[in-house]
C-alpha cells in the first residue's frame, strides 16, 4: 500500500482515469492513449522520490507503463485508479533502485590500464576487446524481458511472430521491449564513454 498522502490526485481526475481505464480494458485505444498521457506526470512524481536523474526517472515511467499494460486486466473499476497505479509505480521505482545498487556494488572504479603497441593494428584489437566488454556490461544491465526481446529479434533474427510464440508476449510488447533495450544500451554506452573521456582528460 502506498504511504499516506501519496495518492493525492483529485477525486475528479481519479474518477476520469478510472473511466478511461475501464474503457481501455474494453479495447478503446483512444481512451487508453489519453489515460497513459495523463498519468505520466503522476508517475514521474513517484519516480522522483527515489531517482534524481531525468534518464532514470523516465526509465521508471516507461517501466511502469509497460507493467500497467501487462496487468491492466487486474484493475477493478469500482476501486480508486490512483491507488492501483501508485502501487505499481512504487514497485517499479524500488526495483530500479535495487538494480542500480546491485550494479554499483559489482562495479570497481579503477582506471583502465591501456597497453599500447607500436603497431596500430594491435591497438585496435585491444580496443575491440574493451568495446566488447562494454557492450556485455551494458547488456547485463537490461531487464530480463528487454534482454530476451533483443536477443530473439536482433541477435537470433527471429520474426516478431516467432518471438511472440516463444515468449508468450504480444508483438506490440516485444517491439516496445526492443525499443527500450536499445535506448538503455545507448545511454549506458554514452555514459561509459563520457567516464572514460574524463579519466583520460585527467591523466
Amino acid at each position, binding site marked *: *500500500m502506498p504511504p499516506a498522502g501519496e495518492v493525492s490526485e483529485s477525486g475528479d481526475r481519479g474518477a476520469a482515469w478510472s473511466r478511461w481505464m475501464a474503457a*481501455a*480494458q*474494453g*479495447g*478503446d*485505444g*483512444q481512451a*487508453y*492513449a489519453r489515460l*497513459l*498521457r495523463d498519468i*505520466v506526470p503522476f508517475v514521474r512524481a513517484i519516480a522522483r522520490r527515489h531517482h534524481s536523474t531525468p534518464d532514470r526517472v*523516465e526509465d521508471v*515511467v*516507461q517501466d511502469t*507503463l*509497460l*507493467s500497467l*499494460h*501487462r*496487468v*491492466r*486486466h*487486474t*484493475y*477493478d473499476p469500482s*476501486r*480508486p485508479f490512483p*491507488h*492501483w497505479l501508485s*502501487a*505499481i509505480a512504487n*514497485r517499479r521505482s524500488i526495483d530500479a533502485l535495487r538494480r542500480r545498487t546491485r550494479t554499483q556494488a559489482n562495479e570497481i572504479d579503477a582506471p583502465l590500464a591501456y597497453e599500447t603497441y607500436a603497431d596500430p593494428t594491435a591497438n585496435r584489437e585491444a580496443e575491440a576487446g574493451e568495446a566488447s566488454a562494454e557492450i556485455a556490461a551494458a547488456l547485463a544491465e537490461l531487464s530480463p524481458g528487454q534482454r530476451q526481446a533483443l536477443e530473439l529479434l536482433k541477435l537470433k533474427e527471429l520474426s516478431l511472430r516467432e518471438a511472440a510464440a516463444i515468449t508468450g508476449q*504480444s*508483438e*506490440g*510488447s516485444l*517491439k*516496445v521491449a526492443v*525499443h*527500450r533495450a536499445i*535506448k538503455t544500451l545507448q545511454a549506458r554506452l554514452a555514459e561509459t564513454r563520457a567516464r572514460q573521456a574524463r579519466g583520460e582528460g585527467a591523466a
Partner: protein
Amino acid sequence: MSGTEHLIDLLAADAAPVRRLASPWRRWAFWGALLLLAATAVLAILGGFAGMQVRMHDPALAGETIGAILTSLAALLAAFQLSVPDRSPRWALLPLLPALLWLGIGTFNCAGAMSGAARLQPGDGVHCFFFITAVSIPLLLAVFVLLRRGAALQPARVAAMGGLAAAGLATMILHGLHWLQGNFADSVLHTAAILLVVAVATALARPGLTRA
C-alpha cells in the same frame, strides 16, 4: 517524439480487450470451496472418513484439524488478495492466528501423548512428513494455476501463502488417515514438512506466478 510518447503510441495500438480479473473474494469463495471439496473427495477415496469422525469426537484433535483447515482457507484468501497490485500487504498476516492455533494445539497434543524416552522417537512422523510434502505437490500446482491470472507485486509473498494453503489441506487429509495422536518428534516432523512446502512454493514464485 520522446521515448515515452513513442511507447504510449505502441501501447495504445496494442490495446486489445482484456477479460477483467474477478474480485479476490469471489475467486476465493469459488476456488476455496472447490479445493476443500477436492481434498474431501481424496479423503473419501483413501478411506479417511471414519478416521476423521474419530478425530472430530476429541476436542483437542478436532481443534488441530479445524486449525489446519482455517489456516489453509485464510492463506488462500491472502494469496488471492496479494495477487492484485492495489491490495494491502497486511493480508499476509491473515493466516497467522489460525496457523498459531493449528501448530500450537498440535504441539500441545503431541507433547502430552507419550512420556519419557518415547517422545524422542520419530514414530510415524517420517511417513507423515513424506505424506504432507507429496500430497501438497498437486495442491500447490493447482493453487499456482489459480493465482497466475493475478499479478503480484511481491510474488514470493503470494507463493508462500499458496504453499501454506496447500500444506494445510494436505494435513487435513493426513488427519483423516492417521487420526492417532503422535509424539513430540512427530509434531516437529509435521511442522518441518509444512515449512518445506512453503519454502519450495516461495522458491517457485518467479517462474510460477505473474509479476506486476
